[in-house]
């Protein structure tokens, strides 16, 4: 881990000290922003951890926890909203026993994310399951797909 972090620190110094780029690189390497990474950056660069967390929590791209094995992204853009995206999302969350604010199941099998718009508006409503686009859909086929993954 330290080699990767050292490289990120070096890049940070090279590119004029851009915290967003540093966090983006970190997330690309680990899939999320580990606490140890922030502590390491803080010690190496003499910058308070709050600076990193301040930026990381401001932008929706950054996550402070690892994601589950399967990633489900429910689009809640306007076109999807008027075609029942909420019903699909709450159905998915119920199926996976996730509370409204929770994203990842306790067994780390699934992460469910809600995004503002994926741009597939003419296929609304849209759900991405592990990168595959399911468009013009409703709760039923999506839940079937999820049950298939559960049984794997």
């Amino acid at each position, binding site marked *: 881990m330290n080699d990767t972090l050292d490289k990120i620190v070096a890049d940070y110094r090279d590119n004029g*000290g*851009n*915290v*967003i*780029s540093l*966090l*983006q690189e970190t997330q690309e390497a680990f899939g999320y922003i580990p606490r140890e990474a922030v502590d390491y950056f803080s010690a190496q660069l003499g910058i308070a951890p709050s600076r990193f967390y*301040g*930026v990381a929590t*401001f*932008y*929706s*791209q*950054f996550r402070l926890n690892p994601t589950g094995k399967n990633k489900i992204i429910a689009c*809640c*853009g*306007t*076109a999807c*909203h*008027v075609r029942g995206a909420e*019903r699909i999302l*709450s*159905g998915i969350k*119920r*199926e996976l026993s996730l509370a409204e604010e929770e994203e990842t199941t306790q067994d780390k099998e699934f992460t469910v994310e809600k*995004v*503002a*718009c*994926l*741009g*597939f*508006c*003419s*296929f*609304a409503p*849209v759900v991405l399951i592990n990168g595959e*686009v399911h*468009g013009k859909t*409703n*709760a*039923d086929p999506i839940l079937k797909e999820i049950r298939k993954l559960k049984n794997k």
Partner: protein
Amino acid sequence: MGPAGIAAGGKHVLESFKEALSGTGITASLKENCSSHQVGCLGLCARDVLVEIHQGGTKTVYQYVKADMVRRIVDEHLVGGTPVKEWLVDGAYDAFYKKQVKVVLSDVGRIDPEEISAYEAVGGYEAAKEVLHSWYPEEVIEEIKMSGIRGRGGAGFPTGLKWELGRKAPGETKYIVCNADEGDPGAFMDRAVIEGNAHAVIEGMIIGAYALCAHHGYVYIRAEYPLAVERLKRAISQATAKGYLGKKIFGCDFDLEIKIKLGAGAFVCGEETALIASIEGQRGQPRAKPPFPVNKGLWQKPTVINNVETLANIPYIIRRGCAWYASYGTEKSRGTKVFALTGKIKNPGLIEVPMGITLREIIEDIGGGIENGKQLKAVQTGGPSGGCIPANKLDLNVDYESLAKAGSIVGSGGMIVLDEDDCMVNVAKYFVQFTQSESCGKCVPCRVGTKRLLETLERICKGHGRSNDIERLEKLSAGIKATSLCGLGQTAPNPILSTIRYFRDEFEAHIRDKKCPAKVCKGLLTYSISEKKCKACGACLRACPSGAITGEKKTPHKIDQAKCIKCGSCFEVCKFGSVERN
């Protein structure tokens, strides 16, 4: 192959064509004449995958193409010479394009977006070359001013004037920034332009940089658009290799480098000063203006920020002249505008229309009307900063002034069509939910105000509305608009105000009668099963996640209201229409 085309399997279709063309034993001469290549978004996304076949001067278009259909198209059409009739597009296809005028999108969907030579073959980079070789920067600014083009990101500030201010701003180092942080939900115009013709954006930036005398450019683009980022990177490296970017571009004494900055997901970063903070690596929070970015922007240097669509228009304006561009549109809103037409419309997709076209022409002629024979209720434009135009104002002209007068905005170009099944209070709540969660938190009116607006709307939708709620919403909205620091807060109440203005009766039904006329708001609905219609098939019983439905074979099912969570699952699965919402 735009995002929708890829979603619909465009890549598989392209692969199948390559395979089928090479594997049929077609003679060498046919092979030379036959090439399959990918293009950007063709527009009519609802019928993806669309495949155009050009032979001699004729064009044939297939719709809903799937990989397994390719072999037959190749065998019968390309080899045999007879098109596969039943797969061709119908009349709606021509109607979709008839009233459109393509300027920015003229090469999108026509050329391979990954090859600079394809753009050059249709006249690409000629405008930049000519400008750098034989125009004075002032002449460029004058030309853009005369064209009348206004910022396509939403606010509609005259582009030529912005460039003039940038040119006159004192300072050695200046920046030109392309704002590709398209954050409106329900909008994908900028993405389509970059994915379909990134070179036009770069050429626009070159011309702009020359006019401003800026040697550094940034494209601030959402990380959520991986394909657009990839195509932009490729386009920049191709342009650099050709000497169109870098040192002494086009052999002139002018340097320009363009860098890409990935946004990290924050709607507020579409605001200029927040965008600048984000490029600098900080939290994307806006600051008070003045000083305006044009005087003190990126790293305190003069900075001009233009939207993707605005920049992509520039090469076409220079090539064909400001008079040609200004011949489209209305007196104050010149040229064309790209819209993402979505929602309850028959033919959703990406369209480009002359400013001043009526909403009716867009909805009925281009979009083909409302799907499933439903009634149009409203058209939402401008996303979370805009408003709803009711069905009885369909003859409104789509331009900056007319839309503003009607309580909405042109915005960046999202156009969402709503029908009788949509609840306007719910739509207003949806947008406030969005702006509330995207509020950066710096100023109180926006941070606290949007939260209070949302709480009030949530209360109304749950059936706990109070008699003076409408007045409270209006008063609070006026305060937020007047006192917020940036455009996000200043426009956040617009969706509420415009829905109250045109759909006050729906608000009143929610508040006074505790009813949702469109039957959307959960808290105001009860689900029941009609004994007469129920076939006791058990579908709803199996679908109910809360075990609220009971029933045996051959006896009509019942819903236990105490257990019902109003998720609507039973309503969705019932094939006999026996589940009723009231």
